[in-house]
């Protein structure tokens, strides 16, 4: 049951780039993301699902670059929320595999995930609204902030990948 739900979420994440621009390279990348993600969801492996989601993100970025469509904040926020749900679900399924679940455990967890995902979605939309409003005003001074954010993102990615590859399975 949890595996099927995780596979559905992987399919939903992969559908974002295909919905944006279903060109050949995007489709290939999305296919690879689907294969890796489904493998991860079937094996209940969080690292594999993370890898699949990362490929899906690259495909989504490629699709956005190719389509040159105007930015849609709700799509980005929805993709982020779907990623949160996917990671939480696979992690929970891996932890509880073969274990007995008491009454209300699944419902309680699902409620928590939905609350966090909705909060993330709302935060992203609110941030985009604020950014749209403040963007023209702070365009000049905010450029260094954007660059610093990009560098921070790159550093976080590298650090996360290194930690992911070197960390032991602690659970």
């Amino acid at each position, binding site marked *: 049951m949890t595996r099927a739900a995780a596979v559905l979420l992987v399919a939903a994440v992969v559908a974002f780039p295909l919905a944006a621009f279903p060109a050949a390279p995007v489709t290939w990348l999305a296919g690879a993301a689907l294969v890796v993600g489904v493998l991860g969801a079937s094996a209940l492996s969080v*690292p594999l699902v993370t890898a699949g989601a990362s490929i899906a993100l690259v495909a989504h970025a490629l699709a956005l670059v190719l389509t040159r469509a105007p930015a849609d904040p709700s799509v980005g*926020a929805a993709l982020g929320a779907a990623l949160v749900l996917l*990671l*939480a679900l696979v992690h929970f399924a891996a932890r509880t595999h073969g274990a007995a679940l008491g009454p209300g455990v699944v419902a*309680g967890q699902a409620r928590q995930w939905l609350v966090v995902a909705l*909060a993330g979605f709302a*935060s992203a939309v609110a941030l*985009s609204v604020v950014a749209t409003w403040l963007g023209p005003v702070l365009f000049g001074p905010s450029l260094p902030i954007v660059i610093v954010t990009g560098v921070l993102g790159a550093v976080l990615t590298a*650090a996360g990948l290194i*930690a992911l590859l070197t960390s032991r399975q602690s659970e």
Partner: protein
Amino acid sequence: VSWRPTALNVSCLTLAGWALFLGVLTARADLILVAVPLIVALVAGRRTAPPATVQLARQVSADRLFEEQRVTATSTLRADADVSLVEVFEPLPPRVEVEAGRAHAFFRLRAGQEVRWELTLRCGGRQRLRLGGPHLRLWGPLGLAAAETRRRQPQAVAVYPRLVPLRHLPRPVRTQPYVGNHVSPAQGEGIEPGDIRPFAPGDHVRHVNWRATLRLNTLHVTQHHRERNADVVLLLDTLSEMGAPGATVVDAAVRGAATLAAAYLGRKDRVGLIEYGGQLRWVRPGSGRAQLQRLLDTLVEASVVFTYVTRDLELIPRRILPPQALVLALSPLLDPRFVRAAVDLAARGFDLVVIAVSPVEMVRAAMPASPVVDVAARLWTLERRAQLDEHRRRGLTIVDWDGVAPLDAALAAAHRPRLRLALAR
């Protein structure tokens, strides 16, 4: 107990960083927005307050049971504050299977709420089962933080070898002065008729044998055999072991010893035990239920301890190995030291019966089935039969038992010489 970030944080960070990096690289704001829910989740998953205190009380349904019986461990969890997810895990020792329930479970606890977690275990082999207490892990939201502890509530459960009823027990040659179920060669008060002799002053009239009296024209009386108990010493060979864990020759010998002990104690005999192996342990002969408990407690611990030292049975005190006792040796007869000890006992006049536990079937069961294994097992059986015949020629009384079939069948098929030369007491 404190919160620790879990590996899921790394995954969230990776995806958030990746989204930010791609967003900056492609100059797309909607990619940067992908990172926002992930960062919100990371912030929501952070725990700063100490985790709630979860109290755990556990009860075990029995502290003594026999093999293949069930024991139920009931744990009650109670938290002082809401806990969204608590994980409990009971590590199980080998040869213990979960019959009902799961050894790994997740619960949701509200403040003050009690949750019962029941686990029924089937104990497959003799052992001193130690349930050390479950591991507890509290999970934060989304599984991004965890607090782990272990509630050490060690509880020991003695799993005794299973007992099988026996009908055919080797009869002791010599009996003791106390009343029991064995017909003694000595004459006296009893219900088993013995010889007929002429009447002597002091004889009871009810003992007069009227048929013999009429035939011989003088008063004759019927004598009776006394019913007496006996001393039985179980000599357990723990010098060598073969077979898969839980189904070794020592396990079979221990089961046999426990069964014999229960059967002889049921007949009012005094039963003792000598564990002849790397360590020489013994239980003084005694009778009653307390003695059975002592013997079972000793048998649970019986195991092979490797040694080069040969133990001398002459060093064992007479009160542990009385000369009048029936000695029942349970051994696979694999170690020449035990064979020498058994031959020595027989030569010293002990009433000795060796129950030879065959390792062939146990080793065969532990190996993958193949024609080569079958042929090897048959050859081994033939060789073993020849060895047992050789031991019989040396004066040992041997009962061959494969360790799998009921011991009663092996004892019923065993042939023992008549006990006419027994010493009367």
